[in-house]
């Protein structure tokens, strides 16, 4: 059985890995540019399971388990140093208590902290404007570029075939089956097709067979500094009470990455730089940690949150087609979900259903039935 995976990023690679582990030997990955050239190499490398919907919490918890397993199996780098959500307003602590109670139901051990306790975890916080915090010790971060290349080299050594600079123009169907993918470099046949080509990529490919995938690529503008010794102790420090949830993380190489959801045109081109984004992003974080005003900004880039109407991914089969599956629309969480994505898509391809039942809520059917995923609190 040949499985054709469209999309050479985190989701496609983990799907290939999981299928290979379960005995599939003919796997072809098609990528329109180079390895991970979409969201997979534009994200900030962080992960957590402390989400606000049961679907996200359950799947992300499993994904972290798998990341830890793959850390030894694939010699990946990752560290669980926690997420620290900062509350500026005292009433936010009530929301945090509600969230912590919800997380504990799923054995995710978040806890509410006083300003002093938060400053103990992240020295240098301006306690005058901090009311308290929520801390998730199981969250963490990783050098994403290095890990992705390690996974790629492993897959190549296992015999997975990669075709780069191969753009799928349309899918060729017959009797509700996908027969082949027509690409800029010819036609590729297969028995099973998985589309994991990000937001616009997936949307365009599915439009060729009249399947509507509701997604929009929200433009983001992360900023990185020169390398410093360790300044940011947790994986991520997030300013909950400021619009756009600004946050800062520090990479394994020392660079501080700042990002914030600022208002911008959706699907702005990769070269539509906005120099004003830098000041807007760092200002609230400098208020929280005044010493940050002295860091040197080195570079900024554009990436996308490939966002669905309920900010959750779309997984599983794409009826009426019998041999077509989707893993896309991660709404900013595709890297962290990578391993569980691979597991679930392999389940669907080989067993017809996911091994984690709650994942069935994430099929594309929900946009027809109106059963969108509900969150107990909206974050940023």
């Amino acid at each position, binding site marked *: 059985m040949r499985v054709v995976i469209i999309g050479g990023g985190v989701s496609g690679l983990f799907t290939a890995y999981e299928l290979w582990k379960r005995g599939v030997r003919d796997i072809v990955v098609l990528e329109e540019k*180079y390895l*991970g050239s979409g969201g997979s190499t534009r994200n900030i490398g962080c992960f957590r399971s402390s989400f606000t919907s049961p679907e996200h919490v359950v799947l992300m918890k499993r994904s972290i388990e798998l990341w830890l397993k793959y850390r030894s199996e694939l010699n990946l780098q990752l560290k669980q140093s926690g997420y620290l959500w900062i509350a500026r307003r005292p009433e936010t602590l009530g929301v945090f208590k509600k969230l912590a109670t919800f997380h504990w139901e799923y054995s995710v051990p978040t806890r509410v902290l006083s300003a002093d306790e938060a400053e103990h975890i992240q020295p240098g916080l301006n306690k005058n404007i901090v009311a308290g915090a929520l801390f998730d010790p199981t969250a963490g971060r990783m050098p994403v*570029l290095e890990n992705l290349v390690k996974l790629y080299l492993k897959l190549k050594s296992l015999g997975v075939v990669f075709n780069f600079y191969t753009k799928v123009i349309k899918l060729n169907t017959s009797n509700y089956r996908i027969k082949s993918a027509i690409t800029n470099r010819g036609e590729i046949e297969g028995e099973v097709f998985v589309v994991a080509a990000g937001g616009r990529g997936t949307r365009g490919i599915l439009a060729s067979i009249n399947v509507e995938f509701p997604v929009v690529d929200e433009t983001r503008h992360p900023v990185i500094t020169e*390398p410093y010794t360790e300044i940011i102790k947790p994986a991520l420090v997030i300013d909950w009470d400021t619009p756009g949830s600004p946050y800062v993380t520090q990479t394994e*190489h020392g660079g501080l990455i700042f990002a914030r959801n600022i208002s911008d045109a959706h699907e702005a081109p990769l070269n539509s730089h906005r*120099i004003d984004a*830098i000041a807007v992003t760092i200002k609230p974080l400098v208020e929280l940690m005044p010493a940050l005003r*002295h*860091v040197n900004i080195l*570079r900024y880039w554009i990436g996308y949150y490939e966002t669905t109407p309920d900010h959750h991914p779309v997984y599983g089969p794409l009826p009426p087609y019998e041999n077509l599956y989707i893993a896309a629309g991660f709404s900013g969480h595709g890297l962290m979900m990578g391993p569980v994505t691979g597991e679930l898509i392999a389940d669907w391809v080989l067993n017809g259903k996911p091994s984690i039942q709650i994942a069935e809520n994430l099929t594309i059917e929900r946009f027809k039935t109106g059963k969108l995923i509900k969150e107990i609190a909206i974050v940023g």
Partner: protein
Amino acid sequence: MGEEVKRPIIICRCHDVTLDDIVNAIKAGVDNFEVLRKYLRIGFGPCQGRSCVLLAARIFSRLSGVNLSEALSEYKVRPPIIPVAARVLLAGGEK
């Protein structure tokens, strides 16, 4: 390449990437210059690639057979080009 020199040959001075690191990554199967750059962080440091990217691209081109302009086709220069202190950008005002 570089055998006549008996010490590590630094290609990327910001991240201490050596000639051996580059040769080993290409031998291990890294087959795209942008992926190589991201894997080893060539051009990610304060020089932003001014001293290393062309050197590394030439080495990649020679070892992989990919021509130089193709190797560099994905490389982008990103603002603000030289490091700028956060306080300077903040003084510029916010909308």
